[in-house]
């Protein structure tokens, strides 16, 4: 992957995303959600998107705003239904969005497999359940497993805490969640960070996502939301 581009605006960061793209969107609920990149993507106009994310949006910010703008054809996620997922719920009930539910750990591991060049792997998760229907099963050493395939993105939109000028990333607390995995699994990884710092200022031992996985970085104002009604 060629050297990371540091861009001035979120609009530049999401430039060129084509209609019909598969986009991995970081975040667990609202922690780690790349709000500015998604807002820029809405302005950019790409439609007919397939989104891979843990949830299907909260309230009307971030991913929910993209759904509300009717840009998403299909979503692969583990947990669409939440206290404040009314945008998704309505689209789904009206048949205006396709849903594929993937257990959370398989979702993460399938993206990891894409990034790690693994062709497929046998997972014990979901064995014997409706989500294993139609999937290849094998017993290995007396344990039952389901064969799972990689999930790749054309793009990943994620957020991180800091980037250096090379594109090395560190995250903050549980906002790390899917970011480091998605960064490895997309052809083009686009990151919004709270801060860009000079190269050499991040501890080499503590870099979570090496710059090789990062294509475009933009610094944005940190926006924080918590899920209303979570308990």
């Amino acid at each position: 992957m060629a050297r990371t581009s540091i861009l001035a605006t979120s609009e530049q960061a999401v430039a060129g995303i084509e209609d019909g793209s598969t986009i991995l969107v970081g975040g667990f609920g609202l922690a780690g959600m790349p709000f500015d990149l998604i807002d820029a993507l809405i302005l950019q106009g790409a439609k007919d998107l397939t989104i891979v994310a843990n949830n299907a949006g909260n309230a009307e910010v971030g991913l929910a705003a993209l759904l509300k703008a009717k840009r998403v054809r299909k979503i692969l996620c583990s947990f669409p239904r939440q206290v404040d997922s009314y945008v998704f719920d309505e689209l789904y009930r009206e048949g205006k969005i396709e849903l594929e539910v993937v257990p959370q750990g398989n979702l993460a591991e399938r993206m990891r497999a894409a990034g790690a060049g693994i062709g497929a792997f046998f997972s014990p998760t979901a064995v014997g359940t409706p989500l294993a229907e139609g999937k290849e099963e094998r017993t290995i050493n007396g344990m039952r497993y389901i064969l799972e395939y990689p999930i790749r993105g054309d793009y990943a939109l994620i957020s991180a805490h800091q980037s250096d000028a090379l594109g090395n990333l560190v995250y903050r607390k549980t906002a790390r969640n899917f970011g480091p995995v998605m960064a490895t699994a997309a052809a083009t990884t686009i990151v919004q960070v709270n801060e860009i710092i000079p190269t050499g200022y991040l501890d080499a031992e503590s870099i979570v996502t090496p710059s090789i996985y990062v294509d475009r970085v933009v610094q944005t104002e940190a926006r924080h939301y918590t899920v209303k009604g979570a308990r």
Partner: protein
Amino acid sequence: MTADTSTRAPLTMDQLAAVIAHDIPEGSYVNLGIGQPTKIADHLPKDKSGTVNVILHTENGMLGMGRKAEGDEVDADLTNAGKVPVVETPGCSYFHHADSFAMMRGGHLDVCVLGAFQVAPNGDLANWSTGKPGDIPAVGGAMDLAIGAKDVYVMMSLFAKDGTPKLVQACTMPLTGINCVSRVYTDYGVFDLGPDGARIRATFGITPDELCAKVAALHR
């Protein structure tokens, strides 16, 4: 075993949480599922210095999760699996989702406590979907958690709102995992699941005979 089988009344969910907390060995690594099981955190035993010697895992990427955050402690970047803001404990660590679920899938956690719609004596668990048409399916980490610890416990009310037992001879709702639950904690009793089916470990406010009469999946 700590629960007094001569309890006068069924336990409240808070009392049940205390029973479970007492049964978790010191030094354990534990994941408490969303919903009722999160109550267990408030009852974990403390040592002389006031330290809880159980380390909580939250599947969104943390070991050493602390209590709910209050007021100024709230940090949108630090939540539990239910998306509730929490705090750190000393020695906590963060990791990404693939590493977090590898930790569960690899069998490194000691105990996981989950809610349930139905459990069967063979350890089958149904807790992610009622299977009703029109429901939006949403599994989250439920299927990973169901196989995600050396011991998987269920915490639930023994009877559904319509009075039918949730400990059933065979689950009729969509399964979350098979042969995965080793113990069931309910307001009326605690049951160990094993090769011989469900064995009564304790009862609360009811006799074993009365319980067996009400719950077909139980037998003496």
